[in-house]
């Protein structure tokens, strides 16, 4: 079925259709968060808004998720040039860093809870919980993709086929996207407060 959209059947297209499809899906996910963050702006302008400091972990976590992105990019590089060990190791660390991100986000929510910002209280807090929660859901989807990549990396014989390269690229695009999505969300929260 993949052959239907193989590059050679298309002849003149420059980007693989599935890659393009993923990029516009990302645009669509972006609109989901644009909806949520603009709801935040509208509601904040309405007054009765609780101001509070974001947990420090959110900032540390940004480094974690960006490191994960870098690790995956490097893994892709070594995958292509045939450094099997480095490729597998970096892929694994990207996965672990992603996992760590989720754990630290959860810890961040506990920190917010500790300073009295509750999910059900003033919408200022609810928005941060919900928006970062929806983001974590998208990270989880990325981790699922990384899990598939890991299983394949360690179970299949190492070869660079166009199919596997494409699959890696798709995972890579999505993982970069959700990483930068967090950067956007954090910047948004900082600018707004």
């Amino acid at each position, binding site marked *: *079925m993949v*052959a*239907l*959209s193989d590059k*050679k*059947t*298309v*002849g*003149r*297209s420059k*980007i693989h*259709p*599935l890659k*393009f*499809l993923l990029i*516009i*899906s990302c*645009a*669509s*996910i972006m*609109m*989901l*968060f*644009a*909806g*949520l963050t603009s*709801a935040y702006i*509208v*509601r904040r302008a*309405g007054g*009765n808004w609780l101001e509070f400091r974001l947990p420090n972990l959110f900032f540390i976590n940004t480094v974690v998720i960006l490191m994960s992105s870098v690790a995956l990019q490097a893994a892709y590089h070594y995958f292509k040039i045939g450094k099997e060990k480095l490729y597998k190791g970096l892929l694994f660390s990207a996965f672990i860093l992603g996992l760590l991100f989720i754990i630290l986000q959860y810890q961040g929510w506990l920190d917010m809870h500790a300073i009295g910002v509750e*999910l*059900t*209280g*003033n*919408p200022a807090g*609810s*928005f941060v919980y*919900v928006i970062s929660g*929806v983001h974590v859901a998208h990270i989880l989807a990325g981790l699922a993709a990384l899990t598939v990549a890991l299983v394949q990396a360690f179970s299949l014989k190492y070869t660079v086929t166009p199919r596997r390269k494409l699959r890696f690229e798709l995972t890579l695009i999505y993982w970069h996207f959700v990483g930068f999505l967090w950067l956007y969300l954090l910047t948004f929260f900082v600018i707004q407060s």
Partner: protein
Amino acid sequence: MGSTPVVAPEKTREDVLIEEQGFDDHFHDHHHGDKFQSNFITKYVFSMDHKIIAKQFLITGMFWALIGAGMSIVFRLQLGFPEENFAWLRPLLGNWIMVDAEGIGTLDPQFYYALVTMHGTILVFFVLTAGLSGTFSNLLIPLQLGARDMASPLLNMLSYWFFFLSGSIMFASLFLSTGPFSGGWTAYPPLSALPQASTGSGAGMTMWTVSLVFFVVSVLLGGINYITTVLNLRTKGMTMWRMPLTIWAFFVTAIIGLLSFPVLASGFFLMMCDRGLGTSFYLSEIFVGGEALDYVGGSPILYQHLFWFLGHPEVYIIILPAMGLVSEVLSVHARKPIFGYKAMVFSILAIAFLSFIVWAHHMFMSGVNPWISNFFVLFTLIIAVPSAVKVFNWITTVYRGNLRFNSASLFAVGFVSMFISGGLTGLFLGNSAIDIQLHDTYFVVAHFHIVMGIAAFFGMFAGIYNWFPKMYGRFMNETLGKIHFWGTLIGAYAIFWPMHYLGLAGVPRRYYRFDTFDAFSHFGAMNKFITVAAVVVFALQVLFVINFFYSIWKGKKVTTRNPWGATTLEWTTPINPGHGNWPGKIPTVTRWAYDYGKDGKEFVSQVEPLAEGELTDGEGAHH
């Protein structure tokens, strides 16, 4: 459904051209296509073939249209004959018909609201979004662009099955003992956000939301596929400016959906948090039954913003595909190139852009700052400009053409009539001052039913009658089609024209009965008239459905490849195309889609090479 690939009975000039100049993608060298259609389940149920998926969307849409329209008949009966005994509806509606000691049955008022709500939800989302754009985008995008299938047939299949899942959940909610959701299709809080607000706000609303979230997933999976296919899988020579207007319309529709449906999802998500987790995004200081609830600091207007940010583009998600179908059908049957092809494309783009910056015109009466309303009034009224361009071009396309009066072209002309009638009342409603009087009255009901309900249906009917031969290899019955058209045209105006008067008189929408209000009771006869017209129109749609299914198996067989003499690529495929659409190479394109009545030829197929010095793509149009 008789779609076994048939060896072409005759070798047409198009076949020869495709063989000589077509693009060989070696599609038929690997048998990956057939592997996925080896048995009944993979061919007709979990099919990845865009043509089958299109039929699935269409037939599911028709199922929902009958349910949604049937509901409107029930509440029209209530409005037209509030004193009548409805005990005879008990076998269908059960306890929603309350029978008193004397055996007189009345419709439960709570269920009346549920009917109105479900009618709106079903028609807007399941019929006019999935049934219209889902059907024709799937059918025509690959066929008219010269592609084997969608970019991702798998996601395409999932798109349908998410729609099916969504529909199943909504269908199940109809049978809840507390009834389906009843707070209006827009699901404004607090009726939607508080489970205890009304009987339908509990389980009914939960299922409504879950259903629509799956629906959003379906639309997005479909949409990303349509966009990718249009941008990446056009055949050689099919430049953007050579695409038929149908494809432009589906393409832009998909972009609008992709940008607006996620925002609706975010609105629903916050709603779910309010309902399930106790957050206060939309709820604030509410008393239910004299008891104060815990919610603090929410804003119900916030939901309205998020909802209408989808809600208004949604109107164009519904109408643009109809416009595309009508443009194509009118041009083919008037035997003339579409007038102002580029103007048509630019007006589609302009409408799409404007659709995103007018949402608050639904909220003039919700307490939006009147100063900000000015901008929304302005942009709303500006939409009249690209809309008028389109209307002008349709009329000019037909003007002095050799219009063939068949069911397809009649419905296309009827679309233009409806779009004008309904569009003009939009100018009234877009005006925030006039909206003070007209808001939430039958004037609004009349406006949107004509301009996006009936008009979109007419576009859809035009499309079905026109492409039925491509879908099933048979024609629909023309006589029944014409009865369907004339009856529906007259009947639809009979239903909605009087509603303008009701609305101007201030009759509010969504009321259970009017005979108990002094101000409105004298409209009783008018309401009876509307109800009778609605019953007749409903009967005609049943006739259409009968015609549809009868024709699938018993209709007159299509004997030539290109029964309408159209230029576009779908008519160069075999009468019953198999998976992959073209038996050999895929056609390459050398000209635009509207070479009709050119150089003494009635039409010139898109695969026909240009003669020396010949102008195309509309360049020679003014000579």
